[in-house]
């Protein structure tokens, strides 16, 4: 089976400071990988590099996405090829409605795949169906994208967009941050509904709490730009119990 994503010895830096210091990670279809780690360990950098943020420079290593060189693609081509990033801080775009924004996104993806744009009625029906996954009110479609949305609404909107774009690889960057327990449950349900044997997910989080709802197949612990431990879902529980200091001590001993 061809992996969805294969990261080999990935090094990346920003303004000359190396943040990622040799990441290796392979995701097979159907797998959900959790990446955990303390603040500043490089979790969000990994997400940013995979999505193609230009302020990061990849200095070493390869990333293969569905057999193609991911690092060679523009951010929009990565998206069109099926990579989706749920932002930790979704951006507000004044005056651009959520519906109009999604129409541009979905049709750009369809054009990339040689498909014609969706008919307006068809598109509206699809949006309403997918919004239900995250219990979003259709009134949000006409509001400016993320503008005046609460923290929870923004995160739900991210998962709604994911449902519209049907990615083969979704990266959820601290999607749980700032959510209360009800919102967390709704978001997690929305994500779980999109798990299939064909797609993969990377769930980046600081806390184990989210992983009670989105149960991972593999848990990685990132510290100081490297994956210092990999295990099953129980690793998250151990981390929760013993705290990140445990990892830091152990890793520095190993190092």
């Amino acid at each position: 089976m061809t992996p969805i994503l294969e990261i080999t010895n990935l090094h990346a830096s920003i303004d000359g400071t190396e943040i990622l210091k040799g990441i290796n990670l392979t995701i097979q279809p159907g797998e959900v990988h959790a990446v955990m780690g303390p603040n500043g360990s490089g979790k969000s950098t990994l997400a940013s590099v995979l999505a193609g943020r230009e302020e990061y420079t990849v200095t070493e290593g390869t990333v293969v996405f569905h057999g193609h060189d991911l690092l060679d693609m523009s951010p929009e081509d990565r998206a069109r090829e099926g990579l989706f990033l749920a932002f930790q801080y979704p951006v507000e775009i004044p005056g651009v409605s959520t519906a109009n924004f999604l129409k541009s996104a979905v049709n750009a993806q369809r054009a990339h795949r040689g498909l014609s744009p969706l008919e307006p009625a068809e598109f509206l029906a699809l949006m309403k169906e997918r919004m239900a996954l995250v219990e979003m009110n259709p009134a949000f479609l006409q509001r400016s994208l993320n503008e005046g949305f609460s923290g929870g609404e923004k995160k739900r909107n991210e998962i709604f967009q994911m449902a519209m774009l049907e990615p083969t690889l979704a990266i959820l960057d601290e999607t749980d941050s700032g959510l209360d327990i009800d919102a967390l449950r709704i978001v997690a349900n929305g994500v779980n509904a999109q798990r299939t044997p064909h797609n993969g997910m990377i769930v980046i989080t600081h806390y184990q709490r989210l992983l009670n709802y989105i149960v991972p197949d593999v848990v990685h612990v990132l510290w100081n730009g490297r994956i210092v431990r990999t295990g099953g879902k129980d690793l998250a529980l151990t981390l929760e119990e013993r705290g990140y200091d445990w990892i830091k001590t152990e890793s520095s001993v190993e190092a």
Partner: protein
Amino acid sequence: MSEVPDSQHVLDDVVQREYQYGFSSDIEQELLEKGLSEDTVRFISAKKQEPEWMLEWRLEAFRTWQRMKEPTWPNVTYPVIDFQDIIYWAAPKKKEGPASLDEVDPELLATFEKLGIPLDEQKMLTGVAVDAVLDSVSVKTTFQEALKKVGVIFCPMSEAIQEHPDLVRRYLGSVVPVGDNFYAALNSAVFSDGSFVYIPKGVRCPMELSTYFRINARNTGQFERTLIIADEGSYVSYLEGCTAPQRDENQLHAAVVELVAHQDAEIKYSTVQNWYPGDAEGKGGIYNFVTKRGICEGARSKISWTQVETGSAVTWKYPSCVLKGDHSIGEFYSVAVTNHYQQADTGTKMIHIGKNTRSRIVSKGISAGRSQNSYRGLVRMNATATNGWNYSQCDSLLIGDQCGAHTFPYLETANSTATVEHEATTSKIGEDMLFYCNQRGIDTEAAVALIVNGYARDVINQLPMEFAVEAQKLLAISLEGSVG
């Protein structure tokens, strides 16, 4: 390594875009020699077979103009204009004034067809009557008969002077006096045509009225004059559009527009200004020095200006409202895009005189390339403007770090019950915004168009439906470029 198209690249490419109305037409024309004197004014008046009072009015304007100085306060720079090096009269040879379609030069019809303004009523957008002005004269006004049935007068100004002298004498220069400013005086002396609209009492004009201005001849100035009168309880929506051929030399456009709204009347005036802006090096383009003013004469009257400004090398324009009637309302909605070396100094004046008068200003400036974009606005609450209310929102969007955005609001209050509120912000199209769009599969060029249209939405929404779509396209084109 990843090859990420950066926004700067896209914005640099903006410079490459082409002006799509830059063609010129080969129409046989009658041209007056360059230069301006009393004789020029007499020639124009004679050509129009104007009555004596009109000639006198023009001559007074000319003499006033001779005593005036060109204004230097706007935040724009351009070479000294030689007013003797301009042609003040250019007209298609075949026919003067309006004609039945059969009599119109086919080349001329083709010109307007190419501009997307078919003059054949069969082909036109339903519900829009058009007055087409080429250089100095009106060539065709459509749907005149249909409008006449409800008493609406929509005709070239030259025709109005002949046919409706009482109305013209009463209102011409009543809102923008002859000596109002340098360019208004010049226009009053040499204006050649323009549109005249009169909506009788209680009539809601059954269709959108529209004037399309086209400069074609070389070295000519365009000086049109528009006068719209909405009598008690009437309503009219009026739209003007403008384009010019791509030429290396600068051409002068100095128009005057006067609006009069009587009691309970409403005038909605929309402009999509797309004069040739000059090339990427700042060569050529139209100098657009325009005086537009409306008076809300009667109680509960309303005047609303909406403008989408994308063209012209230099723009100097402040569509204004004098709110004289109690409870009258003035509005100004503007999107001004400047690119390359364009300069725009535009805004509005809201003069509150009557009680309970209200005004709203929404101005969205977008600067790109090496352009300079200024908002200049005056809100004045006179001592008589009890409970006057104004709200202004002036936003600037900068694209690239070679351009400038300037905001000059003047807020003068002489009444303790009046409220004036002004807010302004400056922002850029953030990298984070573009990246967010990219991550959803939208390329940078499309993202810029999406974001700019979102930014201008409050203004675009004010335009009549058919033109809103046009305006959106125009904004996208103005800032378009391909990702290299």
